[in-house]
């Protein structure tokens, strides 16, 4: 009997010896909403990551020449809020033994893992959450998406340059909306413009008729909107036209409301809307063309890119590069140090870099106007503001200690 056990033990040992030379797995935990009102974020993240790994492969060669597989483990916040996001992060770190966290469509989710990232020394690659102050919350945060002030300041500058002197602001009543309101007002009035009125609408509002009446009475040159992309934006543009604002010559300014992927919900009312954004979907960058083609190939003709796809693509690129340079077992801060000094010259959005001090994204802002081409609404670039650093960080320098 002992003889049999000995033989089995020997066989198992020799087998495991063989397995040790297989590809090592570097796990990245991705936390986002895959169901509920924000379901599109998780889906877009995952599709873009699949597309990136289909094009560039799932493995990278580490510094010692060994193959390392970058494996994404997905967890759904199910619209449950930051407590759930934190709990999922804990589970991913303790049970799945992820070496990095990524994703985070909503700012509260991203902020909820600040403590954990420091305790577990885990880098966090933020692929959306746009509140400016997040990256200050932990030295392990690296953001590849954008901040709201970064988009809003160039828009205000464009408005002044183009003879818009009076603006009415209609923003959504949540943290990004407040950011947008503050920064637009600050920049616009600094450059000599006048804010003739402002209102905050509830975050899920789709009944804008009354707000439009107030705008009409204030007689601005332009209406600046900040609404979550999706049904609120669509409803606002509809009301803007229905209530005669467009006919009265009031221009419409925004940022993320006219993303290509949402264009199907609009009508001709949206033509002429000017937005400032960090990604114009039909740009001719080689990585963008590659991403779009790959998405259509893998997920059908209707698949499209949005800022979630682009951020996930760039985030995955950054992670691949970091692991290739440092191997799978480096310290968390070493990965962060590597990532924050990288220039991503092959991003689908255009040129971008990570700020070495703030670990936040620096990128071009594109001013675009909506036009109708071949029966579809598209954003057409009319101006570019190069390599914009987040204005909030400039206004609030880190406390030196």
């Amino acid at each position: 009997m002992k003889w049999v056990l000995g033989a089995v033990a020997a066989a198992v040992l020799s087998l495991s010896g063989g397995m040790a030379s297989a590809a090592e797995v570097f796990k990245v935990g991705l936390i986002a909403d895959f169901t509920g009102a924000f379901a599109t974020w998780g889906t877009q993240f995952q599709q873009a990551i699949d597309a990136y790994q289909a094009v560039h492969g799932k493995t990278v060669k580490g510094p010692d020449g060994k193959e390392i597989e970058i494996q994404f483990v997905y967890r759904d916040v199910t619209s449950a809020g930051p407590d759930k996001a934190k709990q999922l992060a804990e589970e991913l770190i303790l049970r799945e033994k992820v070496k990095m966290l990524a994703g985070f469509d909503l700012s509260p989710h991203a902020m909820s893992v600040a403590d954990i990232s420091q305790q577990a020394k885990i880098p966090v690659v933020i692929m959306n959450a746009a509140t400016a102050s997040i990256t200050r919350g932990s030295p392990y945060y690296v953001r590849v998406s954008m901040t709201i002030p970064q988009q809003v300041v160039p828009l205000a500058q464009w408005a002044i340059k183009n003879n818009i002197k009076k603006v009415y602001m209609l923003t959504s009543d949540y943290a990004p909306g407040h950011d947008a309101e503050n920064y637009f007002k600050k920049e616009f009035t600094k450059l000599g413009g006048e804010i003739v009125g402002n209102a905050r609408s509830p975050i899920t509002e789709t009944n804008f008729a009354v707000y439009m009446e107030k705008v009409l009475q204030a007689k601005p040159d332009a209406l600046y909107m900040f609404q979550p992309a999706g049904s609120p934006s669509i409803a606002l543009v509809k009301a803007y036209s229905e209530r005669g604002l467009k006919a009265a010559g009031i221009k419409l300014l925004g940022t993320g409301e006219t993303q290509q992927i949402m264009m199907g919900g609009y009508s001709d009312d949206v033509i002429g809307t000017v937005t400032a954004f960090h990604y114009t979907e039909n740009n001719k960058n080689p990585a963008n063309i590659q991403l779009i083609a790959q998405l259509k190939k893998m997920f059908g003709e209707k698949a499209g890119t949005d800022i979630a796809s682009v951020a996930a693509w760039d985030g995955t690129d950054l992670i691949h590069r970091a692991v290739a340079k440092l191997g799978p077992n480096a310290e968390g801060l070493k990965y962060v140090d590597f990532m924050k000094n990288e220039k991503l010259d092959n991003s689908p959005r255009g040129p971008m870099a990570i700020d070495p001090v703030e670990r936040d994204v620096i990128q071009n802002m594109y001013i675009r106007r909506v036009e109708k081409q071949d029966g579809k609404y598209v954003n057409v670039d009319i101006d570019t503001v190069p390599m914009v650093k987040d204005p909030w960080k400039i206004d609030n320098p880190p406390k030196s200690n």
Partner: protein
Amino acid sequence: MLSFGLTILLDGVSYGMVLFIISVGLTITMGLMRLVNLSHGSFAMIGGYVAGYITQAGGNFYLALLIAMIIPAILGGLAEVTVFRPLYRKGELAQVLLTIGIVFVATASITEIFGAFPYPVVFPDYLTKPIDIGFRTYPAYRLFLIGVGGVVAIALWYLIENSLYGAKLRAAVDNPRMARTVGMNVNVLFTGTFMVGSALAGLGGAMGAGILSLEPSYALKYVVLFLVVVIVGGEGSFKGSFVAAMALGIIDTIGKYFFSQAAPYLLYVTVFVLLLWRPQGLMPAKSVA
């Protein structure tokens, strides 16, 4: 000033009409079957998506509205017979749990079939333009809502007050035991009423898509609104739901105009005060249907 006041009135009434058309089915089934049905919004959502699908494919708008009523009616009838009927005797907790579960199933199904992005209903051109009503131009769409809502309200009132079906309905709401004793086929009555309520919800969801946007989370997002209309109006009271829907629409509109950020507070404080004053609702079913 007058023009401004009239605008608020029209905006509030058109919003209230959408709420009324969707909620009237809920108030009748809650009063009739004493069923706490939190999934009612799902039928409105399904009706909206059906109309969206047909109009996006180029179909006739009115045909789309008709089918937006038929499909929720069929689904409602099936649901009533299979899922809801066992629940009538089971108590409120079981009803709440099951109907919330149905909402989640509906949301997931819609996401699976139609995707998670907002889903538009394509209205005919003449409805998307503003028309001149004398003192200002006003969106034709909103006038359409008021018109159709008014017709539905009158038709329902006539049905409930003057038809045999209406008499049976009122009797069964007032005193279900006596109704059974007198020999009414309560099962058929329940199923039929549930189907009518679901059809109306579907119509409201389809027509109201310009105000209550269609997306998979629709049923959960707006369930509070529909419940407020039903509770404030009085369960089982058709007239109550009409009055409550109009009040809710107008107060919400006024709140948005004057208090913008505080508008939801105004609405819910009003509901709170109204319910303190009249816990059974503004026009409870015992008085008139």
